[in-house]
């Protein structure tokens, strides 16, 4: 009997994203919500700076970086204790930022100044401020470390910044209000969401040509509510996911055929996305319903919603 129980326990194990911790920024609570990846419940809430938005772990998970917009800085937290250990000179009103794969540099969108600030993470100093289009918002680094992408919301472009020269090498015109960008894990494609255009633009990294434009249309949902924001592509490049804002759904896209496979219901005003460490789950932040939706990426079904606090914005996952 005992042996049987033990076997049953082991049989259950692979289904669990063991020991993952999900960290969510709460824009209106000035806090981080820490969610236990085993129980999928809120473990605790940690107070930090004002209006926390984008959040990323360092590649070694020893640090957490959080853009605290109303304090005009990026706070550096200890990845285990969540204590603030430092700040970075992000420029005014930092909203989104990206870190290169080696954890050497950080790239910050400065929406009000129309520039991208480059910070050396070893020295904590600004290396360069790169002028980009009006209202830079989305920012992404390519997994191969060659490119940084900045999308400007009013200029409607994806700017390709060469990481060696820190100069813009190319600009791709996309649909109105590009909000977010992400590379495929093989760095071969760049996916850019357009909030007002209701589209996803897929660009070939080599040629910088647009490969495909996907228009999101959901039966029964007013087109104006379909506002694509967060985008993420799984490690095997099987599926990509796009958060559709007030349409309260995440679009699932076949990342090979580049077609919409399904629309999954989430909480209200879904904006940002993160995978569990094993990729079996997707977490979404739902700003207007104050929760996180957990999506099973095998079954492509939402399985749980976890209340976390007021206006969850960004999400990051640590093993």
């Amino acid at each position, binding site marked *: 009997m005992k042996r049987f129980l033990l076997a049953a326990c082991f049989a259950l194990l692979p289904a669990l994203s063991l020991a993952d911790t999900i960290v969510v920024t709460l824009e209106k609570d000035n806090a981080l919500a820490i969610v236990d990846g085993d129980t999928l419940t809120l473990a605790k809430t940690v107070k930090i700076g004002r209006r926390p938005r984008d959040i990323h772990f360092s590649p070694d998970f020893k640090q957490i970086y959080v853009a605290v917009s109303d304090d005009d800085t990026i706070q550096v937290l200890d990845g285990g204790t969540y204590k603030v250990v430092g700040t970075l000179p992000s420029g005014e009103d930092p909203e989104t930022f990206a870190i290169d794969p080696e954890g050497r540099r950080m790239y910050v969108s400065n*929406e*009000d100044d*129309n520039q991208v600030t480059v910070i050396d993470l070893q020295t904590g100093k600004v290396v360069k401020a790169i*002028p980009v*289009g*009006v*209202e830079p918002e989305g920012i992404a680094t390519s997994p191969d470390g060659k490119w940084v992408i900045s999308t*400007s*919301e*009013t*200029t*409607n*472009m994806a*700017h390709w910044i060469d990481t060696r020269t820190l100069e*813009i090498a190319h*600009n791709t*015109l996309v*649909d*109105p*209000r590009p909000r977010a960008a992400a590379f495929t894990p093989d760095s071969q494609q760049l996916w850019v969401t357009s909030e*007002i*255009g209701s589209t996803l633009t897929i660009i070939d990294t080599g040629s910088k040509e647009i490969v495909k434009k996907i228009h999101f249309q959901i039966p029964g949902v*007013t087109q*104006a509510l379909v*506002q694509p924001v967060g985008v993420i592509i799984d490690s095997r490049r099987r599926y990509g996911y796009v958060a559709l804002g007030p349409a309260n759904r995440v679009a699932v896209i076949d990342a090979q055929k580049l077609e919409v496979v399904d629309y999954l219901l989430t909480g209200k005003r879904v904006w940002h996305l993160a995978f569990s460490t094993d990729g079996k789950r997707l977490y979404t932040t739902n700003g207007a319903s104050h929760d996180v939706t957990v999506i099973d990426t095998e079954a492509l079904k939402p399985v749980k919603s976890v209340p976390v606090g007021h206006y969850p914005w960004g999400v990051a996952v640590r093993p």
Partner: protein
Amino acid sequence: MNLSKLLPFLWIPVLLALPLTAEAATVHIAFLGKQPEDLRPAAANLEPVHADIGLRGAELGIEDDNTTGRFTGQKFKLLGATLHHGEDPRRAFYFLLKEGYRHIIVNLPASDIQQMADMEGAEAVILYNAGAYDDRLRGRDCRANVLHTLPSHAMRADALGQYLKKKRWEDWFLVPGKRRQDRLFARAIRRTAKRFGVKLVAEKPWTHDFDARRTAQALVATFTQGVEYDILLVADEAGLFGDYFPYRTWLPRPVAGSQGLIATAWHPAHEQWGAVQLQNRFRERAGRWMKPRDYAAWLAVRAIGEAATRTQSVDFAKIREFLLSDRLALAGFKGRPLSFRRWNGQLRQPILLTGPRAVVAVAPLEGFLHPVDELDTLGYDERESLCHLTRKRP
């Protein structure tokens, strides 16, 4: 004929026309405004009269367009002109035409816009109306060479109507002022009432002399006595008396229209959909809040910029074609893509319903449906319009 007398008139336009044609990939935009009337507001003098309304919006738009232009190799240049009292706008317009300007933004009354649109040579330009709410400019007196980035009175009235209908405040008490714009807004409110099937239980024009300011305040209670209604709608577009109505009515009822809950294209309290960024950029540059006419001028410049970027051309015909096509999806910080109505040149746009410090709702409200575009539930729809610049292809 004495040639020397004629010469000055000949060479000025020629000289000025040169830079416009010589430069490659530059879009030249002109802005024409007028010194505002110096009217004393009803209540407190909270804000000075600004002479640069509209112009500041256009300037910000040029800055935005040029930031984009850095990456596309296009330049945008603005010539701003503000007319003093007594100056004939047609004369200024004539010189703009002579100098080769083909995109001309105007913050002027409807009569001026109409006269300009009919002038010789004006058929080869686009006038962008960022100044007049008059419905007739979008209806009976519409012109193919005028686009309207400012909403119409009818759009504002319909936005209010949608909200009041949703709240089931369906007995309206209308109080229009004496001025022309008051009467036109009141007319739009009457149309909305009919459209939504609500009752105008009373209409009483406010005719009091503004010199008797103190008594005017006291009069509101008795003025509104004896009428049973849900909401009082005041049409006082210049802000001369409407601010006396909230809290002074005989019955405890809310006030909307030109004061109280207002329907407007833009407002400082609007922060959603990234609007706070535009508010900040404008305030940093102009040192004051963005006004609806600043927003309309900014939209006009941005629409031109967007057309130049998307068509990769500064050619007038190409820009014009793009602006009137369904490819235009202008981001206006109001959560929906904006485009021009092909039948009358009006820019479709959401309307903010707002109090002095907080936005209450944004029209079109949920539930007000339209077969093509919900934004067309605001103002004269294609079938109601007396203007048919382009007939829909079958």
